[in-house]
């Protein structure tokens, strides 16, 4: 699809010969805010276990306590500290999100690059795979696969990867195809560069910023999908805390003890907002603004 391609000419055209070079783009305020939010979430998830308690520790003396100084986010029906559980839930959510985004990006990237470099049946096959993937909403596949194969870490990640590699693939392929046909690549070929040289010198570096953007989008869609799966009871299983699953289990008490479902829900939102803002910022910085982001938007 044409939308998913970025032509380098676009970027270049921005700088007309006699006009001053374009001002250096930044990821913008939004991008920095996103990065900061993510940093907070990630740091809490990493450092949380050192400072806070046990997410499984029950305290039948303090059941369903509203937020207070002792329990900032209150306690749940087992007297467990919701804050601690949100922090630990973040570990699960982030680990799954990151691993699946990394795998999805790697898979999408390699298929796209192979397709762009070799063309022919390699490209056609990868394109068909992507079409197959697009024929069924990933959540449906996820539900089927997880409830039959079981829902441990690996199947969950596999399902999320299945749902998101196509994005990276399409974005990168569109771009890589344009780059492979670009005159500067032809110039390199005239100078004697082979496929590997072209990939190393021109293709991979040019694809990296796009990859970063696709990665943040993948991560945020994986996060949302992961929490939806958790909510549907198909994600990480209790007692291991997980945001989506915490929302689901706290939902029955939402009228009497809203904090149980609210805080994990907000955690998902904050993380997703962070990823979105960072993604937007990166797109603005590297890819030429929302015009490309729209093609990437998930």
């Amino acid at each position: 699809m044409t939308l998913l391609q970025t032509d380098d000419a676009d970027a270049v055209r921005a700088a007309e010969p006699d006009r001053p070079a374009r001002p250096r783009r930044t990821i913008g305020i939004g991008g920095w805010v996103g990065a900061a939010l993510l940093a907070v979430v990630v740091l809490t998830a990493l450092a949380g276990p050192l400072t806070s308690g046990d997410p499984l520790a029950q305290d039948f003396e303090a059941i369903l306590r509203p937020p207070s100084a002792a329990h900032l986010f209150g306690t749940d029906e087992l007297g467990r500290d919701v804050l601690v559980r949100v922090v630990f839930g973040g570990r699960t959510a982030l680990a799954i999100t990151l691993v699946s985004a990394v795998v999805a990006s790697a898979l999408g990237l390699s298929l796209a690059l192979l397709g762009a470099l070799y063309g022919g049946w390699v490209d056609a096959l990868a394109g068909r795979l992507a079409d197959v993937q697009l024929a069924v909403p990933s959540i449906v596949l996820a539900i089927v696969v997880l409830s039959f194969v079981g829902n441990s870490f690996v199947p969950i990640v596999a399902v999320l990867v299945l749902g998101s590699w196509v994005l990276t693939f399409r974005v990168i392929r569109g771009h890589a195809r344009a780059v492979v046909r670009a005159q500067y690549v032809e110039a390199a070929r005239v100078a004697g560069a082979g496929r590997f040289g072209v990939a190393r010198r021109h293709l991979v570096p040019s694809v990296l910023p796009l990859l970063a953007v696709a990665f943040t989008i993948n991560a945020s869609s994986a996060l949302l999908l992961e929490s939806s799966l958790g909510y549907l009871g198909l994600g990480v299983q209790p007692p291991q805390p997980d945001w989506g699953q915490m929302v689901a289990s706290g939902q029955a008490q939402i009228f009497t003890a809203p904090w149980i479902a609210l805080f994990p829900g907000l955690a998902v939102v904050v993380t997703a907002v962070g990823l979105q803002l960072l993604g937007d910022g990166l797109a603005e910085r590297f890819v030429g603004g929302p015009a490309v982001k729209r093609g990437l938007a998930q």
Partner: protein
Amino acid sequence: GGGETPQVGDVLRLGLSRQITGVNPHKGGSPDSSGSIVGSIYESLTQIGPDLTVQPSLATAWTSTDPLHWRFTIRTDSTFSDGSPLTADDVVWNFQQLLDPDYKGTAGAPLRRYLTSVTKVDDSTLSFTLSQPALDLPGRLWSIYIAQPAFAQSHNLDNEALGSGPYKLDTLDQENGATLSLNPHYAGPKPQFAQVRYTVLASEAQRVAALRAGEQDLILNLDPLDLAQFRDSDTYDTVLGVGNQPLTLAINERRTGTPLADPRVRQALNYATDKDTIIKSLLQGAVTPLPGQVIYDPFQQPDPAVSAYPYDPEKAKQLLAEAGHADGLTLTVLLSSGTYVSQDAATQAIAAQWAKVGVTLKIEQQPFPAWLQSQYGPDDQAADFYYIMWGGAFRGDVTGNFGPFRSDHIQSHLDAPEFDALTTRAQNATTEAEKTDLVNQAVQNAHDEAHAIFLYPSPFTGVVSKGLQWTPKPNRYLYAQGVGRVQP
């Protein structure tokens, strides 16, 4: 929002907590869904009262001529909702279908174990021939519903119904609910509501929200903790009581090299479990711990000689040490997602308690089908424990009460030859006295050998509109005919 005065409309609105799995009278069904609807549309020979006693229904009387022969007298006034009479031949036909090994209806499977044939003696008398004695035969027949043969042969019973019960099925959406209206030909007392709507509310959150929005008149199976919010309601009463089936941790004693093969370990874990704390905090004090056996008052006759394992961590440690596990054990329990009330919280509490005697209990959870599959699977791949609720359906139901704890049960991973022998003999007993004696021996054996972690009876919960008159049935079957209006 809370309405001001108790309001019940013309349509009785009943909430179900599981999707309907069809309304086939020959396939059985969960009380929380299909079973309640089927029981409102069809009749069987006997029925189970709120106290779990066996009561007449289509059959008015029964006698056993000898241990292997029974006679049932049936009503002749019963009529299907299309106006056709329900005859003795119809009953015979239904049993013949169920006894046919190629018949799809699964309700016949247990029958085929002990029932040889059903024949018509005259228009109001049926003769049952058994292959092994069954003192509790009338009770066992409560779930064999009678369909109209002609209709059954020409229609899909999973989706359509023609019965002789108080209601007839108007519409059915297996995912979302069913509507019922009065069976104009019903022979018994006329129920108070002409229209009934069953709505599937599969998640606890949906049930709570529907109640708070005043959209339902009666919903069972809420988490005891969630009842509190309706306790002071103007529109609803809450029900918190004892259910008819026990909750236990079923044990896998047959995994190769399992420490659970040693009765001392099993006993130790029973000692290490603080049932009272769990009941007090999670179950809102609705129940008392099982009396060291899977049968309990008031629904069954427990063996008075057996009582609950007290919470005694020291004793537990000592037993574990004797069994050579002084330095601890790691075991797993498998839960089925969202199946039993409070199961997550309770198993986590148990895990915390066991941790104090050095046993690490790893909790795993799987969707119901996978969980079931694991139980049906080979011993070595099964989990060490399953948090499970199962038990008899009526007073004195030996098969139902003890079957799941026998070694030969299809879901069991036990190794309990003595218990098996005793319960077999109890099933085949020919006098009540003999049966009671054998049951007590079996109970004693299961307790001593600790063939289960005895927890507590399932709590029975419900939220009922103040405008309704309803006698709670602890077996959770929510028959429409059992619900009436408060008479002003």
